């Protein structure tokens, strides 16, 4: 059932953009964790996690994002999440995570000029 989840990276000198699509759940969260850790460990100043094509995320997915945020903090970098889907935003709100993450509406805004 891996077809429900896809992940890819686009790396430049300034930023690593990790694009996630599909369902982030207890099955796909380990893959997301390892790919995010690898992206962060590249050492780019900015890590962008594009969640625009994510259709479902649960507490295990949120836990991975929390762990990634801590890893970025420890490395001195910055991480932005790209989210516009109201249901995904609602999940960040009800779990009290809106203040933990920098959430922006587009990859362009996350990466900057």
């Amino acid at each position, binding site marked *: 059932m891996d077809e429900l989840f896809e992940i890819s990276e686009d790396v430049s000198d300034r930023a690593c953009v990790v694009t996630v699509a599909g369902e982030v759940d207890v099955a796909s969260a380990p893959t997301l964790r390892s790919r995010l850790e690898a992206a962060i460990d590249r050492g780019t100043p900015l890590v962008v996690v594009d969640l625009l094509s994510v259709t*479902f995320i649960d507490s295990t997915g949120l836990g991975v994002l929390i762990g990634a945020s801590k890893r970025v903090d420890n490395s001195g970098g910055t991480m932005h999440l790209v989210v516009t889907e109201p249901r995904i935003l609602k999940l960040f709100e009800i779990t009290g995570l809106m203040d933990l993450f920098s959430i922006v509406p587009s990859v362009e805004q996350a990466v900057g000029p």
Partner: protein
Amino acid sequence: MTTSDRPDARDGASRSGASGDVVELSIPVRADLVVLARLTAATVASRSSFDVEEIEDLRLAVDELCVSLVGEGSEGRLALRFVRGDEDIEVSCTYHPDSGQDGAATDVTSDGLSARILDALVDEHGMDGGDGRQRIWLRKRRARSQT
């Protein structure tokens, strides 16, 4: 919010009377099969005239019932029971460990991200157990039935 001794929640069959009916799903404790619980939740909610947002709420809430029981080396089966009432759906998830496995489960309904999600999305939820089995349950009413 969290209650563990509601008789109707302990035994969904007790409220499967004239208008209620029961859907049961038994799956191995495997992370890649939790999607089947979500699909069943969405289908049952849809057939119970829940609106789109309520269907998505129930889909996520049922996922949260399951996640505590998979991914930590658990071996056995998850028995999900969906009881449709006139105005609500009750869902329970019971872990049936293989012989030699620990039947204990993390109480996701009382702490952490899962608890916050369940608090926000369903009307009641809780955890109970016995005989080496643990059962997590929730109840969600249709919004239209609350007015």
